[in-house]
């Protein structure tokens, strides 16, 4: 993806910068007195996201995350408090979602079977299971006192693909709010967080992409101080025997997930919204909805293969 770094005035007091960060497009919009002030403020958010990218990337072998992966099955690694707490929070989500969310998702053995659009058939049950043998959040051992993370099995890896963008959005928002920005949006390729109102006093209007026409919203919500994340299979999927399979693999079975086109999670915390979208897709409509319906301050919208829309009980469709 080639994306140039652009800065534009959207309204008299609303400015937006779009650029590539963490391998994704970020759009950072803030309300500010003038262009110069906005540029300076957004720069603060950009450096915060770059700092987080450095910490979480698995593309740089020297990153703290990769040091943990290198030592898998060998020894615990001392990490900083920020990474330790992020992993600790992620573990709570794994327990909550019965392992549908798992930081060690990246341990998938791609030598056995790799998701590719040219695939003609699915692997057999045993091969699929073998492929995901190293995925297990139970084997991510956190030592509170020593401040270490230890991956029990050799070959295990952790990655932040399912939570990092949300964490970065929250952190950028915190930096901006600390600097006095009263309203804005940090949008990390669809995992976004909002605070305050638009300069005209109205809440932010967030469109939810139509899985059949991804550039267009099929619906929208008006929110403030709320985050939204969408996970969908409409960008990467394969069709085998007339059935559509997502690039998301169920860490329990090793099979690609089927049945759901997209899941949108709405919650005050971007990190949680980001982390919950994929597991709901993995768990399926019934179990996923049942989970969200029990939780306070979390809502979801699911669109299935038949384009039918399901919502959690705290959503009103108008």
């Amino acid at each position: 993806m080639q994306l140039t770094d652009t800065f534009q005035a959207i309204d008299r007091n609303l400015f937006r910068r779009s650029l590539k960060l963490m391998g994704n497009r970020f759009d950072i919009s803030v309300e500010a007195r003038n262009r110069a002030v906005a540029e300076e403020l957004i720069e603060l958010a950009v450096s915060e996201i770059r700092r987080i990218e450095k910490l979480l990337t698995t593309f740089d072998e020297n990153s703290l995350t990769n040091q943990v992966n290198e030592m898998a099955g060998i020894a615990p690694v001392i990490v900083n408090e920020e990474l330790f707490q992020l992993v600790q929070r992620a573990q709570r989500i794994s327990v909550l979602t019965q392992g549908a969310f798992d930081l060690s998702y990246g341990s998938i053995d791609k030598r056995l079977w790799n998701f590719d659009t040219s695939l003609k058939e699915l692997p057999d049950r045993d091969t699929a299971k073998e492929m995901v043998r190293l995925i297990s959040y139970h084997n991510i051992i956190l030592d509170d006192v020593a401040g270490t993370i230890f991956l029990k099995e050799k070959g295990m890896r952790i990655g932040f693909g399912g939570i990092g963008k949300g964490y970065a959005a929250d952190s950028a928002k915190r930096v901006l709010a600390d600097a006095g920005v009263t309203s804005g949006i940090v949008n990390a390729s669809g995992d976004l967080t909002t605070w305050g109102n638009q300069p005209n006093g109205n809440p932010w209007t967030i469109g939810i992409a139509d899985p059949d026409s991804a550039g267009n919203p099929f619906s929208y919500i008006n929110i403030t101080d709320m985050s939204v994340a969408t996970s969908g299979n409409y960008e990467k999927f394969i069709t085998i025997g007339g059935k559509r399979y997502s690039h998301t693999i169920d860490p329990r079975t090793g099979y690609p997930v089927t049945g759901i086109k997209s899941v949108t999670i709405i919650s005050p915390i971007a990190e949680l919204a980001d982390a919950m979208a994929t597991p709901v897709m993995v768990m399926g409509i019934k179990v996923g909805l049942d989970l969200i319906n029990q939780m306070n301050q979390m809502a979801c919208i699911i669109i299935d293969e038949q384009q039918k829309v399901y919502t959690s009980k705290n959503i009103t469709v108008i």
Partner: protein
Amino acid sequence: MKKICLTVIGLYLGLLAAFSQQGPANDSSYRSRKLKIDEINLVSSYYHQDGERAAVTGGIGSQKLTDISNTLDIKLIRYDRKDRKQVWTGEVGIDNYTSASSDKIDPKTISSASYADNRVYPSFSFSRENEKKGTEFGVGVSASSEYDYFSIGLNAHVTKKTKDRMGEFNAKGQAYMDRVSLIYPVELRGSEDPNAQKRGSAARNSYSVALSWSQIVNQRLQLAFLLDLVQQDGFLSLPFNRVYTEGGAVQVEHLPSSRFKVPIGARANYFFGDKLIIRSYYRYYFDDWGLKAHTANIETAIKLNNFFSLSPFYRYYRQTEVDYYKPYREHKVGSEFFTSNPDLSAFNSHFYGAGIRLSPPGGLFGWQHFNMLELRYGHYTRSNTLQANIVSLHLRYK
């Protein structure tokens, strides 16, 4: 005469067949389970538990999190192949309303229907918006049925925004085909009065064209100019309105079968930040029955905090009488048209009062489903002796 009306509008049910909050049969390897308390409250305890300062709230602490549970409305949009936005709306509303004077039509019956007539009004509308061109058009159908009234309505509208999106022209055409049940005063049923011979129901049709221009002058000031042309045909009298002539004879009111009405108005809204809004409105009205009227209205909305607002209002109205109006016992026998309906006489009125609106984040009375309460009180005085106190209560339940 003092009159207190209590109106309760609430319990709107948005129905959409394609939507469901129940999932289908489970085909995944995951099972539903009952969550523990800390999992139910994961959002509020997410950072707190780690002793970390809440990133979301800019470090103000997790207790500041906005409650989601009573504020989320999602709106459906569809785009067609030409990238035009389409909005479908379907709604079934059920009202309960009360009126004190309709009981007088037939004092012998115990009229349970008139103090709680149910109104059922299904409606269906479709609109399509071309966001690039700033145009929108739509059509709609509605039906309404009441104790003495049945109506079918058709409407169509077109909207065009200016290039800078600050101005908007809107034209709306409406046609209502109504049937009015003719319910005569009890003493005139079966009498010789030729106007009371009509039985059953009569047609009443209304056609209107409404043109408006709204302009956003700047962030604080919005203006709108409105012109309506309304033509009504059919049975425009109300059969239960009695007219007493000079000699004391009683007849039902008789009015022309056509009426052409023209209201012209302007609105101005001024926003002092988002805490104080002033809305003002002026309208001049005339029709071919000889009625001319002025209306001036000012309303303010003062937002005290996110869930409490106050809105005092004042409306002044004056009108001249219609050509066919004469008060009680002043009509001469033999005029073609006659009415003594005080609504068609000359008068002026004042209406003032205030509303309060509460929408606490945790729901009303600690009940999360009950998320908005609006109470309005108004005092209405009219120069021809009518006085009323109006209390209306608006509740939103989810």
